[in-house]
């Protein structure tokens, strides 16, 4: 089963939920955590994994064989990212703009374009106790997170429980991280921003046809608007994590919630059971 954790708004507690869920389930299940927030991965700060494998994350970029090229311009016409310019006597490529879609090489009538791999990040694979851990790190200055996320997700188990920590927002990296999940947990905080971005995230996961449920983090007296929204949209409210100084202190020291306050472990196991029930219901 693949469970992704997304949010819309940033800083709501995705990683808090992802790390605590992974640790709670790892006693009785085969569990892996995939940190797909490749622009700013942070789950490793809490799980402190030992990495034993590193891979380069790369995308294929065009290399033009000037001998074969007739400067017909087809490659630049089909490139929606404007990563190639064709002049009368020269072809220029701009690899930093290339998304690696391969259209130029595929459609070149002279077969003059080969692709070579350009590294844009690294994938690190390791373990934290009984949790398998994978994360991707996009190189500084690179703009394209989705290819790195795709490469992280190649490591998803075929069995067991895979927990994906997504980035905030609702743009390409989030879609790439969340798609293919059996369930998506949406973590929000009880603020107008939290609600606004939660609604956007709900729209995004619904368009991917992934069932979702909500967790309110820093829950306090202002939960009612989020609750009313979830009622209206028929989205289950699965957990509330209170606004609590002890939780904040633990988090600031890099200690996962379930390791700092052990009674939370049972709540995360219950959360998993609720998710399983939702997924089962969805399948009917």
């Amino acid at each position, binding site marked *: 089963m693949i469970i992704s954790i997304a949010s819309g708004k940033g800083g709501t507690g995705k990683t808090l939920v992802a790390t605590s869920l992974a640790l709670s389930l790892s006693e009785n299940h085969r569990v892996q955590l995939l940190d797909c927030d490749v622009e700013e991965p942070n789950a490793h700060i809490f799980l402190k994994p030992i990495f034993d494998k590193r891979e380069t994350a790369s995308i294929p970029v065009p290399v033009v064989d000037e001998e074969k090229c007739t400067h017909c311009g087809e490659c*630049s016409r089909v490139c*929606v*990212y*404007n*990563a190639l*310019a*064709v*002049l*009368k006597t*020269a072809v*220029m490529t*701009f690899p930093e*703009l290339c998304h690696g879609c391969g259209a130029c090489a595929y459609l070149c009538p002279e077969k003059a374009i080969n692709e070579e791999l350009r590294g844009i990040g690294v994938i690190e694979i390791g373990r934290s106790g009984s949790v398998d851990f994978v994360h991707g790190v996009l190189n500084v200055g690179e703009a394209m997170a989705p290819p790195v996320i795709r490469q992280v997700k190649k490591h998803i188990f075929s069995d067991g429980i895979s927990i994906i920590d997504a980035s905030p927002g609702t743009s390409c990296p989030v879609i790439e991280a969340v798609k293919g999940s059996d369930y998506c947990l949406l973590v929000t905080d009880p603020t107008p921003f939290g609600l606004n971005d939660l609604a956007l995230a709900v729209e995004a996961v619904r368009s991917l046809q992934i069932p979702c449920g909500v967790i309110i983090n820093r829950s306090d007296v202002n939960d009612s608007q989020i609750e009313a929204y979830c009622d209206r949209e028929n989205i289950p409210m699965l957990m509330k994590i209170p606004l609590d100084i002890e939780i904040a202190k633990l988090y600031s020291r890099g200690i996962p919630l379930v390791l700092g306050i052990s009674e939370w472990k049972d709540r995360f196991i219950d959360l998993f059971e609720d998710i399983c029930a939702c997924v089962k219901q969805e399948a009917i």
Partner: protein
Amino acid sequence: MKIVLSATGPGFEAAVDERFGRCPYFLYIDSETLEIEATDNPGEKASGGAGIVAAQAVADKDVKAVLTGHIGPNAHEVLSKAGIKMFTDVTGKVREAVESFKSGNLKESTGPTVAGHFGKGPRV
């Protein structure tokens, strides 16, 4: 000589647009006959690579010189490769700019005048 200007509108009375890659119009002008042709700039609304696609468009038209406000690094690379001269810091109306060009009062630029993404975002 065939030249091109980045412009805010399609005629001689329009202003020179300070952006090369993101300007709305390119005005192709024969500096002797003053024959004028206006086209859209394919870079104006490009999600990325505006300077590249704009530079390729003007290179396809066989111009000898570009008159504009600023040129970014990618557009500069393409225009240099195409052997097109670049005159930057050009301001005022298109008509005046063409006159200045003809009287040799414009400054030819030898490198990009702004960093990438200069022309992105709304102008006020």
